[in-house]
């Protein structure tokens, strides 16, 4: 068997069999699944206990029966009861809370109080304020003595939701969902940062192990140092791809299992399935409607669904894998060079800084990219090879012109050749040096050695 292949196989097999790899591979999907599931559970587990709320109006009965009962909340309009009578013992009387509406409500919006022992759910507050607002508007309109007011009100009742449609130069349009794009950008950028760092430093630790255990001295009588370095980098890349693939499969499986066992079956279920399995972060929006299905929510789902389907999935997945491999290759060679230049892990600090700064800068810019994907900062950072893996992955869900992607990828490939060549030169010399602390000047000397 080819010797480089042998090295790749060893690097791969020993890592994949490690307990830490198996634990990480199995546990991380639970974390991912939690990120997807928790918003759903929060939504579906919202305080569903039946509540009775006492409504007290002082000095008028303008709002009697204005707030309609909902599935889990009844409103009881108490006549002739003063707030002070009930304030201290509503709980004993079986009420969840007391809603106090003062006569000034028409003029002062905050002349209304909900007194309760527990924090009331936001849905309930929205329901109350929404009903009251409508009623107050109606009352105010009534004061103008308009004819057929009820009729007019019914016809003007409308709701607005912004549809975002992007148009490319050829004029064809595509509906997108900014929410999904943002979720994808965030997930992609962050995952890229994590993976590059994690597997890059895995390579570095491997190199240090071989150096300090003098394994290298034995092995270089069989293979060239460059073969050893490349074998390690490629082996670890395969470990990364394996782990990544397992994460996706396990996470999807987990999300399905948890959803089907915790959430009520419904007609929406199938509809939610697709967008969620693509990008779970839109849960917050999608999950809101598991209990009641209104026409409004249905359209919302349909739009989300369409938005998710309209994402350029092929490009997103392709570019993620491309940037993972190239970004990893770039940083892993730098990390390998660092590992070969030091005698132990604590000594890596001095060389780590210049390598970590671009990664962290990339992450920061990527996070900003979600707010403003077209800014010139995002543009430049997605072109410059050291930061482009993270920033470009975060930009792609927002539609990036093809030439920008091509330029970024092209530069990346050229840089990799440079980085691997440079790393190989440093590695070849560094891996056999012991004892003295390496300086940047020394590194430069190794780089410029001939032969």
């Amino acid at each position: 068997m080819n010797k480089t292949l042998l090295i790749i196989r060893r690097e791969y097999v020993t890592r994949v069999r490690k307990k830490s790899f198996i634990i990480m591979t199995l546990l991380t999907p639970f974390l991912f699944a939690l990120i997807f599931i928790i918003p759903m559970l929060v939504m579906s587990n919202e305080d569903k206990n039946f509540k009775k709320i006492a409504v007290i109006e002082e000095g008028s009965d303008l709002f009697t029966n204005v707030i309609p009962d909902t599935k889990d909340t009844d409103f009881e309009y108490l006549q002739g009861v003063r707030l002070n009578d009930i304030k201290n013992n509503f709980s004993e009387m079986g009420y969840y809370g007391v809603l106090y509406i003062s006569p000034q409500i028409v003029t002062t919006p905050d002349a209304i109080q909900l007194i309760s022992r527990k924090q009331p759910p936001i849905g309930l507050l929205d329901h109350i304020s929404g009903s009251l607002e409508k009623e107050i508007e109606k009352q105010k309109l009534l004061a103008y003595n308009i004819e057929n007011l009820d009729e007019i009100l019914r016809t003007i009742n409308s709701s607005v939701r912004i549809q975002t449609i992007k148009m490319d130069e050829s004029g064809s349009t595509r509906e997108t969902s900014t929410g999904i794009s943002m979720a994808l950008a965030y997930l992609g950028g962050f995952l890229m940062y994590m993976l590059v760092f994690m597997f890059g430093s895995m390579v570095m630790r491997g190199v240090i192990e071989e150096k300090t255990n003098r394994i290298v001295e034995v092995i270089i009588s069989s293979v060239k140092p460059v073969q050893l370095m490349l074998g390690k980098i490629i082996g670890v890349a395969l470990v990364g791809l394996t782990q990544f693939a397992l994460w996706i499969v396990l996470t999807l499986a987990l999300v399905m299992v948890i959803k089907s066992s915790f959430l009520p079956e419904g007609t929406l279920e199938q509809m939610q399935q697709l967008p969620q399995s693509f990008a779970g972060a839109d849960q917050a929006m999608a999950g809101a409607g598991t209990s009641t299905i209104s026409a409004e929510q249905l359209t919302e789902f349909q739009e989300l669904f369409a938005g998710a389907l309209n994402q350029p999935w092929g490009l997103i997945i392709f570019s993620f894998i491309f940037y993972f491999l190239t970004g990893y290759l770039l940083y892993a060679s730098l990390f390998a060079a660092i590992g070969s230049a030091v005698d132990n892990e604590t000594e890596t600090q001095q060389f780590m800084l210049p390598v970590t700064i671009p990664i962290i800068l990339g992450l920061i810019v990527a996070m900003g990219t979600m707010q403003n994907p077209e800014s010139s900062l995002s543009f430049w950072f997605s072109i410059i090879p050291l930061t482009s893996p993270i920033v470009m992955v975060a930009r792609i869900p927002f539609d990036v012109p093809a030439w920008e992607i091509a330029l970024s990828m092209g530069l990346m490939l050229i840089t990799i050749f440079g980085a691997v060549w440079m790393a190989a030169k440093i590695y070849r010399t560094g891996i056999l040096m012991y004892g003295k602390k390496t300086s940047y000047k020394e590194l430069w000397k190794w780089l410029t050695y001939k032969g």
Partner: protein
Amino acid sequence: MALFEAQNVTKRFATQTALDSVSISVPEQSIYGLLGPNGAGKTTLIRIINQITAPDSGAIFLNGRPMRPDDVHNIGYLPEERGLYKKMKVGEQALYLAQLKGLSHAEAMRRLKYWFKKLEITGWWDKKIQELSKGMQQKVQFITTVLHEPKLLIFDEPFTGFDPINVKQIKEEILFLRERGATIIFSTHNMGSVEELCDHITLINKANTILEGSVEKIRRDWAENEFKIIFDGEVTPAGNGHFSVLNSVFEAGKSAVRIKATESGDTNEIIKAMTAAGKVVSFNPALPSMNEIFIRVVETRNREAAKN
């Protein structure tokens, strides 16, 4: 014919000279000892032979021609510090290193089984290196070094960490390897093993060769006209113009007497005196041990150096 030769090899590090124009010549199918105090430059020389570092000046030859980079494939190297992956299993690791050396899986397995059985470590196959003691790790390393049957073997301190039983076992294996055609260079502090194993030695001190040649010849050269006589019964001969008695030990019915001939001492006269003194069991010239020679040479050199 010399299998390996180093000519005037010099290596300097930033603050010190590790080797100063050192030459050695290792005959084929012999065992060559590299001796010297700690820090003398032995390991640097070994690293140069392995082409881990390049000499600043001088040249190294294999089979009479300058050494090429791919010549390292014909060298088996046992480093002083362990060169094994701590977390890998013994068998897997040995197999991996053997395959890297170019052996096929089947061939590597066959040879590994043979060596594991020979060194009585078959039961360790599935143990991790880090679970083994230092000596046990050394045995595994020894096997991985010799497995591909290289022409030239280099052992850097092969006996550290071994108990006497294992030292004996490894010594036997080294002699066996020489018999099968290998040429062996090894560095050690263990002078006993030098007398037993080495055909030739080089003694390096402070980057310079201070003694070299065949072990036999060196010991004879350094012999100081001393003799060892064994008598039946308790006998102490009296010194005369030809010799003086250095010491005499009576034990288990026999006397071991060590004498030193005077400068004008005549061996025949000495023998006469001995036979007159009692019943002689044996009469031998007393050769100095390598240990004595080592200490004498190094100390003399260091004293001279201090004077200058």
